[in-house]
């Protein structure tokens, strides 16, 4: 009897857990949809911006912009975009594993509590940490951008890089480090934006004639890189959010599935045990009747 009661209790507790993971799965699924839509919507803008900058830079020699000058790298600046909450599979640990191998002199900036914990625990040089809500409003990102760009302009850091889980699709998120500043290799940056698996709706026209700039090159070159860098970082943070919710949705879905399997197994075990108990009882009664008749 005690065995049956024990199994019954386990079934109940697994069912409770299943209820929680399923609720989390549903919440993550709805957040995921929104985050993915936003990440995808902003992509065209970022891509077009990159393309314009690329076209502008390629066809003029008279460019000097502090963001585009190559400089000797004494200290790297890395913005680590992680999640605030756990239960999202291996998303964060895959990301952090990428950073453990870095031996250079690095100033870290972080978004998300998990990243902050990792950086302080592993004794890395965390300069500033930020928190960003699920909505990722632009005004939440602005202080981060300002901090990064100011440090870059003042020479405190010589690169601006961003480490984040890049959203490919619901099942796949690739952790990667992307260098944003200095903007020396635009071809590479453009290729990165057009990452495989992401269809792109903006096709490129080929026209080798000289481009005319209005009002003049200087104005365009002054404005574009700044806009580009800001949009780029914003876009990557959106991508990281989409990754987070996708990873959590998938993790919670498999937890729910596992709970289902466990409940099935336990129910089978419970039925067997119950049947065994009944058979046992019948045997006992039959034996008792048999002995009284004799």
């Amino acid at each position, binding site marked *: 009897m005690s065995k049956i009661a024990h199994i019954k209790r386990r079934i109940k507790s697994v069912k409770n857990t299943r209820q929680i993971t399923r609720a989390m799965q549903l919440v993550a699924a709805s957040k995921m949809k929104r985050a993915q839509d936003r990440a995808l919507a902003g992509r065209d803008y970022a891509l077009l*911006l990159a393309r314009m900058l690329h076209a502008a830079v390629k066809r003029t020699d008279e460019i000097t912009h502090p963001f585009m000058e190559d400089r000797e790298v004494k200290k790297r600046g890395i913005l680590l975009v992680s999640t605030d909450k756990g239960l999202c599979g291996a998303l964060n640990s895959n990301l952090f594993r990428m950073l453990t191998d870095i031996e250079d002199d690095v100033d870290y900036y972080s978004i998300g509590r998990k990243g902050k914990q990792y950086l302080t625990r592993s004794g890395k040089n965390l300069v500033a940490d930020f928190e960003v809500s699920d909505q990722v409003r632009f005004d939440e990102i602005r202080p981060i951008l300002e901090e990064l760009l100011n440090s870059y302009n003042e020479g405190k850091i010589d690169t601006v890089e961003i480490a984040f889980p890049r959203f490919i699709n619901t099942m796949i998120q690739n952790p990667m480090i992307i260098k944003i500043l200095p903007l020396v290799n635009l071809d590479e940056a453009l290729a990165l934006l057009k990452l495989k698996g992401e269809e792109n709706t903006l096709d490129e026209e080929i026209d080798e004639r000289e481009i005319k700039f209005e009002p003049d090159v200087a104005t365009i070159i002054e404005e574009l890189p700044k806009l580009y860098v800001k949009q780029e970082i914003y876009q990557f943070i959106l991508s990281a959010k989409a990754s987070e919710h996708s990873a959590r949705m998938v993790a919670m879905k498999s937890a729910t599935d596992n709970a289902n399997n466990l409940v099935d197994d336990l129910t089978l075990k419970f039925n067997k045990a119950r049947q065994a108990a009944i058979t046992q009882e019948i045997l006992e009664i039959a034996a008792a009747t048999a002995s009284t008749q004799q």
Partner: protein
Amino acid sequence: MALRIQIVTPEGTLLDKEADTVVLPTANGDTGILEGHIPLITQLKRGQLVLETNGKEEQIAVDDGFAEVIGNHIAVLTEDAIDVDDIDLSAVEEAKKRAQAAYEEAKDNEIDPDELLKLDQKLQFLTMQELVKGGGEKH
């Protein structure tokens, strides 16, 4: 259908269609684009973008941004854009009041200048929508 025009905002691609002529509100004044225009990258000022297709005009209010003309392909990069036919003046009026209130409040509280600038831009874009819509209806 000589030209293809795309208007792209951070919220996605707003418009992607073909047109015969396009008039862009650039920093140097309105610039008309026809088939075979030389490659051009230009700064846009908040204003009215006009598409003409088969003699039919379509007006779109755009915010500050950039435009790229390469081949017969025009790509417009802007913070915000709206089809003039979709502008609902009463909604704009409401939005303007809200933006104005937010702007005044922000100014009193001395929040960071970037935020203020953004609010101001939003307000101006709304005002422009009103102007464009109002102007369109007189014809």
